[in-house]
C-alpha cells in the first residue's frame, strides 16, 4: 500500500482535530461540573436565593466554556480547511496545532470552574454581595482563559505558517515541540489562576468590605501564575520561527522535540504552585485585610521561588535549541 503526502496531511489534520476537541473538552467539562456541584450545595443551603445562584451559574458556565469553544474552533478548522500544498512538514504542523490547543484548554477549563463554584456558594452566604461576587468571578474566569488563548494563537500560527523552504528534518520536530511546549505549559497556569480566583470569590463572600484588596491580590497572583505559560509561549515562538539547517541526523530533531517537552512539563508544576501561593494570600487578605501588604509580599516571594523550576526548564530548553 502506498500512501501519498496528501493522505498523510489529512491523517495528521484529522488526528490533530480529534486531539484538540477531545482533550479540550476535558477541562471545561470538569470546571463546569465543579461550578454546578457548588451551586447545588449553595441552593440546598439557601433555597430562597436559588434564582440568583442559578443566574450566576449560567453566566459562570458560559464564560468557563470559552476554553472548549477555542478547542472547537481549532478542531473544525483542522477537519475542514483545504491545504493547497500538502507537505510532510505541513502534516507535522497541523498535528502540533491540535496538540497545542487540546492540552492548552485543559487547565483553563478546570481553573475557570473554581471562581464559578465559589461565587455560587458565596451567594448563599452573602446574598447582598451577589453582584460583587459575579463581577469578581467573571474577572477571575476571564484571566484564567489567557493560557488557552496563548495555545489557540500557537495553534493558528502552526496552521497558517508559511513553511517556505524549511528543511523537513529537523523542522518537523521543532513544530511538534512548539505545540507540546505551549499545550503542556498552559495546563498549570490555567489551573493555578483558577485557584486564586476561586479563593477570591470565597474571600469576598466571607468579608465583602475587603473586595478591593482581595481582587487586587487575586489579579497580581494570577498574573504571576501565568508566567510559566508565557515561558511556554516563548519557547514555542523560537521553535516555530527559528530557521534550522537541513540535516540527516535524528539527534538534531530530538533536541528540538525535547526542548518543547522540557518546557511543557517544566511549566505545569510552577503554574499550579504559583496559583496555590496566590490562593493562600487571597484567602488570608479577606480575613485580615490589615496585613494585605505583607501577605502580597510573601505571596510574591513564594511565587518567585516556585517559578525558579520553570526558569530551569526554560534554560535547558534554550540550551537544547541553541547549543546542541
Amino acid at each position, binding site marked *: 500500500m502506498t500512501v501519498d503526502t496528501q493522505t498523510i496531511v489529512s491523517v495528521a489534520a484529522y488526528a490533530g482535530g480529534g486531539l484538540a476537541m477531545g482533550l479540550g473538552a476535558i477541562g471545561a*467539562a470538569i470546571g463546569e461540573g465543579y461550578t454546578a456541584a457548588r451551586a447545588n450545595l449553595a441552593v440546598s443551603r439557601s433555597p430562597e436565593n*436559588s*434564582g*440568583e445562584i*442559578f*443566574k450566576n*451559574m*449560567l*453566566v459562570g*458556565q*458560559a*464564560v468557563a*466554556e*470559552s476554553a*472548549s*469553544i477555542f478547542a*472547537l*474552533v481549532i478542531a*473544525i*478548522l483542522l477537519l*475542514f*480547511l483545504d491545504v493547497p500544498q500538502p507537505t510532510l512538514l505541513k502534516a507535522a504542523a497541523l498535528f502540533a496545532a491540535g496538540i497545542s490547543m487540546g492540552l492548552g484548554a485543559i487547565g483553563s477549563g478546570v481553573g475557570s470552574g473554581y471562581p464559578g463554584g465559589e461565587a455560587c456558594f458565596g451567594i448563599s452566604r452573602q446574598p447582598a454581595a451577589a*453582584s460583587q461576587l*459575579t*463581577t469578581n468571578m*467573571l*474577572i477571575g474566569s*476571564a484571566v484564567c482563559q489567557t493560557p488557552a488563548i496563548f495555545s489557540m494563537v500557537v495553534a493558528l500560527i502552526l496552521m497558517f505558517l508559511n513553511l517556505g523552504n524549511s528543511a523537513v528534518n529537523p523542522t518537523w520536530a521543532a513544530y511538534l515541540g512548539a505545540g507540546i511546549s505551549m499545550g503542556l505549559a498552559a495546563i498549570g497556569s490555567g489551573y493555578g489562576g483558577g485557584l486564586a480566583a476561586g479563593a477570591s470569590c470565597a474571600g469576598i463572600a466571607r468579608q465583602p468590605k475587603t473586595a478591593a484588596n482581595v481582587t487586587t491580590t487575586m489579579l497580581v497572583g494570577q498574573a504571576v501564575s501565568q508566567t510559566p505559560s508565557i515561558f511556554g509561549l516563548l519557547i514555542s515562538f523560537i521553535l516555530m520561527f527559528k530557521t534550522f539547517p537541513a540535516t540527516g541526523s535524528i539527534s538534531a530533531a530530538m533536541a528540538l522535540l525535547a526542548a518543547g517537552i522540557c518546557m511543557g512539563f517544566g511549566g505545569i508544576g510552577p503554574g499550579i504552585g504559583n496559583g496555590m501561593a496566590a490562593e493562600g494570600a487571597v484567602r488570608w487578605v479577606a480575613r485580615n485585610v490589615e496585613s494585605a501588604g505583607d501577605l502580597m509580599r510573601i505571596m510574591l516571594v513564594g511565587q518567585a521561588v516556585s517559578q525558579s523550576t520553570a526558569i530551569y526548564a526554560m534554560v535547558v530548553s534554550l540550551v537544547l535549541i541553541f547549543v546542541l
Partner: protein
Amino acid sequence: MKEAVSRTQKRYASWALTAAILIGLGFILTGYKPVGKGLVLGTLFSIINFILIAQSLPLGLGKSKRKTFLFSLVSIFLRYALMAIPLVIAVKYDQFNLIAVICGLFAIQLVILADHLFKFIRPGSPGTG
C-alpha cells in the same frame, strides 16, 4: 428562579444581537460584506447556544439521576454540534469571513464581560442586578 435565569438570558442575548447587527451593518456598508455577515452569523449561534444553556438548566431539575445525566449529555452534544455549523459554513463559503465568525461565537461572553467590567469600573452604574 426561572424568571431570574430568563431575564439574564434575554438581556445578554438582546445586547449581543444588537451589537452584532450594528457592527455587522457598519462592516457591510464600508465594503467588508463577508466580515459583517460572518459576525452576525457567529453571534446568532452564540446566542442560540446561550439560550440552550439557560433553557436546559431548569429542565434538568426534578428528574431521576440517570435521566438528568442523559439529558445533560445530549444537550452538550447538541450545543457543540450547533456551534460547529457556522464554522463549517465559513470554511466552505467565502461569503462569510472565518475570523469574524469566530469573534461572533464569543459575542455572549464578550457582552457578559463588558457589562461586568463596566460595573467594576463604575460601581454605581445600572447592570445585571
